[in-house]
Each structure stands twice: as C-alpha cells, then as structure tokens.
C-alpha cells in the first residue's frame, strides 16, 4: 500500500525531493563559504553550475564516444544513436559507470576552479556593486552563449546525457539521489572542517577586517582566490550531478533565479556562516516548494494560474522580511569549537588534576 500525496506515490516523491535538497545544499554551502565566511558576494553562482553541467557533460559525451570508438554521423549532438550506444556499453558495468561519474566530476571541478580563478580577478579589485554586475553579467553571458553556440552542449536543443546510473535498473533514481546525498554530505563536512580550522578563522578575519588581517601577515588576495576556486569547483560538480540525474543538459534550466537566487535565499534565511542553518533552510525550502508543485496538479482546475509563481512571491517577501527582522538568519553565526567538546573536557580534567597535585605557590597568581 503506497502513501499518496496529491496522487503521487511518496516512495517516488521522496528520492526526487532528497536529490534536490542535496544538490542545493552543496551549492548553498559553497555560497556560504564565499559569502558567509569570507564575505565575497557571489551574484554569479549559476555561472559555475552551468559551466560544470555544460563542459562536464560535453567532456563525458566526447570522452566516452572516443574511448568506445563510436563513430558519430553528422552533428555530434544531433546523432540520436550516440547516447543509446553509450548506454548499452555502460549499462551492465557498475565499475565503469562509477569511474565515468568520478572522472566527469574531476573535469568539472577543474573547469569550476579555473572559472573561480578568473572570477577572483574582479572579485579582489572591484567594489561590491560592480562585482555583482560583473558576475551576474558573466553568468548571463555564458547562458546566452551556450544557448546559441551549438558545438559545446547542443545549444537551444540541449544534449541528452548517457545514464551512468542505468545499472541500478528500476532503482536508478534512488541511486542517483544517494550519490547526490553523499556529495552534499562530503561538501558539508569539508566546509565545516575548514570553518573550524585556523583557515576558517583567517577567512572570518578577512571578512570582518581586511586591513587588520593583512597587517597580521595574511595574504588576503591568495585566500580569497582559493576560496573562490574551491567554492566554484563544488558548484561545478553539483552541475554535473544535475546533468547525470536528469540524463540531459538543458541550458535554459540554469537561469539565475534557479542557481543564483535560490541559493542566496537559502543562505540568508538559514544564516550566514552557519552551515546547520543553511542545511535546515535548504530542507524546508525545497520540501515546501516541491509539495506546492505537487499540489499544483491537484488544484489545477480551481486555480487559473501556475502555483509555482506564488512561491516566487512568498519567498521574495520572506527574504525581505528576514533581512529586516533577522538579518543574521534563522541560526546565528556561532563561535566555532576548534576541538570537540569531549576533548576540551578531557584537557580541562587533566589540567585540574595537575593543579590539585601541585598547589600554586604563594605570592604567585595561579594560571
């Protein structure tokens, strides 16, 4: 007996929802690394996600067709036999499929890091408002360019991707979701770890007072460049996972509202420089969004417009109200625990026992 929600089986709905949350969690956490921890307002987040999906996808298709020796007749992306042929080869071979996913992720990470490196040039030199315009414009440029220029990823027709999850058979979507969840978890743990490390304190120092950080000998230019490269590589890898999940790259899907604005909403509502808040916000955001989208079909006869757009209105208002009432987000930034609390307690106990064993000498203040 299946649980139904607006006529959709929950067993199908939950993997789809989990995949969206995981992908957005990874992108939002990478934005949090830039915006929350380092103070770089990246208004071009969609640029890196699109670049990852487009260049990673193009690499994966060209690479597989080259390795498997598939001859393409005519235009590369117009050949309807290409993707089915690749699918037949990799379908029964989980190891090969996983290898292809990892290789594509690696290529996308390199592309993303390269774009991040390029971004750091304006990011270090321009004021916030000019930087926002440059990044927004660049994202839009890549979108229009890839939409028009067919040789990279099929232009306005888009490109069908081979399915590296096909070996899971009917559980394909669950497997794809699992991969996305693992990726998001790794990103989360990595950024959390960075935030707790001495590097994390350097990032906050640069964010809060650049001059002071420089006076203390921190190379702020290099740190910002590295942060942008890492965050962009994460976004690009998320783009690849989106492409593999959908088994398709459609350029218009990477509009700024989807991959720049929604991650910003998640980070601002969740809490800048607080990854727990961002994770909660991403979960609430997409659960609410997807339930509304589901209910759309059930209510289609009663409401004369697309319910998606109510979400736009509500989220826009929520963001503005949040900025007014609670600019620090749902969860505020907390002082980081550089050591686990158990280890701190241990140290405390050992110091206490040492102290009691050797009482402080008279006339000298205790440590």
């Amino acid at each position, binding site marked *: 007996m299946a649980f139904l929600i607006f006529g959709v089986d929950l067993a199908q709905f939950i993997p789809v929802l989990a995949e969206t949350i995981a992908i957005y969690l990874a992108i939002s956490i990478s934005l949090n690394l830039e*915006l929350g921890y380092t103070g770089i*307002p990246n*208004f071009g987040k969609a640029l890196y996600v699109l670049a990852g999906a487009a260049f990673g996808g193009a690499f994966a298709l060209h690479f597989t067709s080259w390795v498997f020796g598939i001859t393409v007749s005519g235009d590369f992306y117009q050949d309807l036999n290409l993707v089915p042929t690749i699918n037949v080869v990799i379908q029964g071979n989980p190891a090969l499929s996983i290898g292809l996913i990892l290789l594509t992720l690696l290529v996308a990470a390199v592309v993303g890091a390269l774009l991040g490196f390029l971004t750091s040039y*304006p990011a270090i030199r*321009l004021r*916030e*408002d*000019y930087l*926002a*315009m*440059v990044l*927004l*414009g*660049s994202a*839009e*440029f890549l979108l*229009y*360019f890839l*939409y*028009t*220029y067919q040789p990279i990823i099929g232009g306005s027709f888009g490109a069908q991707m081979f399915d590296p999850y096909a070996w899971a058979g009917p559980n394909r979507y669950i497997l794809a979701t699992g991969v996305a969840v693992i990726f998001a978890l790794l990103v989360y743990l990595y950024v959390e770890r960075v935030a707790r490390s001495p590097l994390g304190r350097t990032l906050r120092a640069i964010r809060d007072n650049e001059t002071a950080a420089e006076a203390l000998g921190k190379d702020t230019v290099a740190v910002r460049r590295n942060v942008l490269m890492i965050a962009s590589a994460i976004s690009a890898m998320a783009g690849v996972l989106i492409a593999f999940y959908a088994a398709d790259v459609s350029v218009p899907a990477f509009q700024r*509202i989807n991959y720049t*604005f929604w991650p*910003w*909403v998640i980070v*601002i509502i969740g809490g800048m420089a607080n990854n727990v808040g961002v994770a909660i916000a991403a979960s609430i955001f997409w659960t609410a969004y997807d339930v509304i989208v589901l209910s759309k079909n059930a209510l289609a006869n009663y409401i*004369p*417009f*697309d319910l*998606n*757009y*109510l*979400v*736009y*209105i509500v*989220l*826009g*208002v929520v*963001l*503005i109200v949040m*900025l*007014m009432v609670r*600019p620090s987000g749902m969860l505020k930034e907390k002082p980081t625990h550089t050591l686990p609390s158990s280890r701190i307690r241990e140290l405390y106990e050992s110091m206490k026992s040492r102290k009691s064993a050797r009482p402080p000498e008279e006339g000298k203040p205790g440590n």
Partner: protein
Amino acid sequence: MALDQVLVSTVIFASLYSLMSIGLTLTYMTTKVPNFAHGTFITLGIYMGYTAFHFWGLSPYISSPFSFLLGGAVAVGMYLLVLRPLSARGVSLVGLMIATFAVDTIFLGIVNVYAGILANTYHVGNSLTIIYFIADFTIDGIKGLFVAAPAFLAALAVGLYLLLMRTKFGVAMRAAVENADLAGILGINVQRVYVVSWFLAGGLGGVAGSFLPMIAAGSPSTGSQLIVAIFAGSIVGGLNSIFGAIVGGSVVGIAGGLLPTELAMVFGSWVTSYSSVMPVLVMVVALLFVPKGLTTVNWRRLLRTEKKVERASV
C-alpha cells in the same frame, strides 16, 4: 519610401534601451544601489499596455501615461517599503542588492499570476508561452515607433536637462547626488529628491515597456531578461550621468541590432544568432576597459597620446 528593417529596429531599440538605462542610472545616482529589479517596471509597462489594448482598445501611445504611473508607483513603493527601511536598519549594500533581486522575483511571480489569469480566465494569450504583440500604426510603411520612440527620448532629454539645470528642484537633485548629507544640512529635502527620482525611473521603465510589444514579443520574464542589457547601457554611460545613459543605451541598441547584421555581411549569417549575447558582451567589455563609462574617457587626450606615440615611433 522603404527603410532598412534592421535600421528601423535598431533605432527603436536604441531609444527604448536609453529610456530604461536613464531610469536605472537615476536610481543608482541617488540611492547608490544597483537595482536588479529595474526590469520589473518594464514588465509592468508591457502588461499595462497589453491590458489597456485588449480590454479597452487603447493604443499603447494613449495608455503609456498609465504605464508611467504604474511603473512609477511601484518604484516609489519599492524604495519606501523595501530599500529605505532596510538601509535605515543598517543593512549592507550586499543586503540591499539581494533585496532588489527579491523584489524582481516577487513581481516575476505577480506578473506570471496575472498572465495566467489573463490566459485561463479571459483566454487572452497562451498560458505556456505568453507572448503578445500589439499592432503599431504605420506611415508609408514605416513603423510609427520609429518616429515616436526617438522623439519621446529627445523630448525627455530636453525636459530632464531643463529640470536639472534650470529649476530649483534640479539644483537640489544634483546637490543630493553630489553629497546627500551636506545637501540635507543646507535644508534640501533629500528624501523627496530620492522619491522623485525613483518615480521617474519607474515611470520611464513603464513607458519603455508599454512601447516594447510593438517591436518585440513580451512575456512575464521580459524585464528579467532585459536587465543585463539595461545595466550594460548604464555602465557604458558611466552609471552617474543621465546623458551618458542615452549614449550607453544607444550603444547597446546598435550592438544588438545593426552591428551583428553588418558583421554578418563580412563573417556570414551565423553572427546574427548571437545578437542576444551582444548586450552582455558590451557590458563585460565596458566593465573591464571603461568601468567609469564612455563619458569619462578623455578622447582628446587619448588621441593626442596616440599621435605622440606615432611621432615618437617616426
């Protein structure tokens, strides 16, 4: 008399882009926040014009004052209800920018809902691809907008020049732009200046929007798509000069219309398919090479140094 279609559309687009860029420049000069929701005013103008045309049979030329009022009212509302309270609470520039993004999204939703109701309840347009055209009048086969849009722009430029240079309010406005605190101390009502400039900005966007369906298809996301071209115009114009915005808007209009067509004659017809990329390219190039705008380039000195270089090389 037959005129080149590309020339006609370039002139019209250059005029409309100029109108939009003037508005964006006005708000940036006064409030110092790049308004990513400027496209909203254009979209509202499109739908005002379309509603008036469909339900009351009014030509956009007649309904454009209503578009002006609607765009202006929304712009003032946005300034008074969103940006002013936020900056009073000490929200950073980044926060204000993302708030304008949010306003854009809100209105993207509102206009989409309206367009959906139009399509499903009144059976106007198509609910999937909401694309409308409104017929323009023609004289001797020339589109009326070919005359009307540049004429409106010219009248506006003269009007703004007179307002800024010849009236007391214009002096107050320029003072508020130069130094808001000092102007406030001298008794200028800076807030009123800001409200008026936002009203003008929204209104001009609304008018440009109401003219737009006569030359290109409009949809609820038209404004969001145009925003980069509008920014390109303002940036080429230097973001701090209204007359620069006219130059910038024209550059963007030419780059998106005439230039690809001319280049296509040299490089082949594939160039024209990139006309949508051109405004963004103009913006990126302008930001990289003339970030303060074309009007700040000292052309005379540039030419002189080049001559000097020539002489030195000789």
